[in-house]
Structure formats: C-alpha cells, structure tokens
C-alpha cells in the first residue's frame, strides 16, 4: 500500500513540498507538476533539503511542465525521474491513492 503525492507549487514560495515530504511513508512517490517542478532543480537553495527529505520516496517530475518553464532535464537533481502525462497516469494506477498537496 503506497501513496502518490502531487505537489504543484514552487518550494521557493510555499511550504507545500516540505510539508508533503514530511508526511511521506517509505515507498511513496512524489510527483512534482506545474510550478512544483522547480522543486527538482539542482543547485538551488532547496536542493539539499529535497535531496535529504526525499531519500525514502521516489521523486518524479512532469516533463511537459519542465519544458514549458525552460528547465532542461540536465538541471534536475540526481535520482529524479522525468515522466510525461502517460507516466503520470501510470503512477496514479500503480499507487493505492493520490494525495494532492495544494
């Protein structure tokens, strides 16, 4: 039993991603979408926090949202996997429930 968490806000502006990671269980997945994709940026101030807190979960980022924002996948933190909308649907199906951190 595991949860897919979605985060759609920038961790540089709101607490949503941190709060999400604070409530994840081992084996959960976190998908960053919309402005949430900035949570995947390497080199930023939030990067070490996301890296440390995200150790027990699988981190994903929605590639179409990255492309829209001009973020190349080479800029992503190591270990984060890019998915498209089809991959988003697969993650929803694979996990037992979806929780949106709005």
């Amino acid at each position: 039993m595991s949860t897919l968490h979605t985060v759609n806000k920038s961790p540089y502006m709101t607490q949503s991603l941190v709060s999400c990671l604070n409530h994840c269980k081992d084996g959960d997945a976190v998908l960053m979408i919309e402005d949430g994709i900035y949570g995947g940026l390497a080199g930023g101030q939030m990067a070490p926090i996301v890296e440390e807190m995200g150790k027990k979960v699988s981190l994903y980022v929605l590639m179409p949202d990255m492309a829209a924002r001009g973020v190349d996948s080479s800029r992503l933190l190591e270990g984060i996997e890019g998915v498209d909308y089809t991959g988003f649907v697969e993650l929803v199906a694979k996990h037992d429930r979806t929780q949106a951190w709005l």
Partner: protein
Amino acid sequence: MKIGVLVSEGPYTHQAVDSAYNFVKAALAAGHEVPRVFFYHDGVNVSTRLSVPPQDERNIQENWTSLAKEHGVDLVVCIAAAQRRGILDKNEAERQGKDADNIAEGFRISGLGQLIEMGIQTDRLVTFGD
C-alpha cells in the same frame, strides 16, 4: 481502472484545469475509464459558454465540451459553488429569477453528493487545484 478527477481552480487563471485536461486525455488513451470530472471551488467557472479567449490561446471550455462528447465523460459542476460564482443553467436561472444563464453544452449542474459518489465508485481520485 476507473479514475475520478476533481478540478478546483478556474480557467486561464490557474494551470490546474489544463493539467486535468491533459491528464484525462492520457488516462483515456491508456485505456482507463474516466467516468466523471467534478468541478468545485473556482473550477465551476470552466463551464461558462460566455468565455472568449484570444484567438491564439486554447479554448478551455470547448476542449472539455469536446472531450465529454467524444468520450462520454460526465462533467459535473457543483451547484453550491456555481451559485456563489454566477454559473447557472436554464432551470437554475428560472428558479432564481435571473434573466440569463451561461452554462456550456456538456456540463451539468448537480450537488456535492456527485463528488462523494465519484470517490466511492472510482478506484482513484486525482485532484487538480491550488
């Protein structure tokens, strides 16, 4: 698998409704069922037929109306949220003594019970909001 979708933000203002649309198309393409999309909070504003977006932008309402027509997705607009925000169908307009209505084809106004029912009858519920 049956997937229900909840849309909580208004069109153009927030990407939530675009994300929901792209997600639903992908879910249908992958062979899943999306029996219903429920529009709540400012999400109800997606259903106005009076929207006139610029020529070079997507028409969010028309996209959803087409999707409903092609795939039989039930687009439900929450009546309580809709009344506050000025979204009415013909019946509601008459009942409330308003001289116009504005809901688009493919959307229907109903109660919050339809959201709970969607939660009960689907295998997954995915929320797009702010």
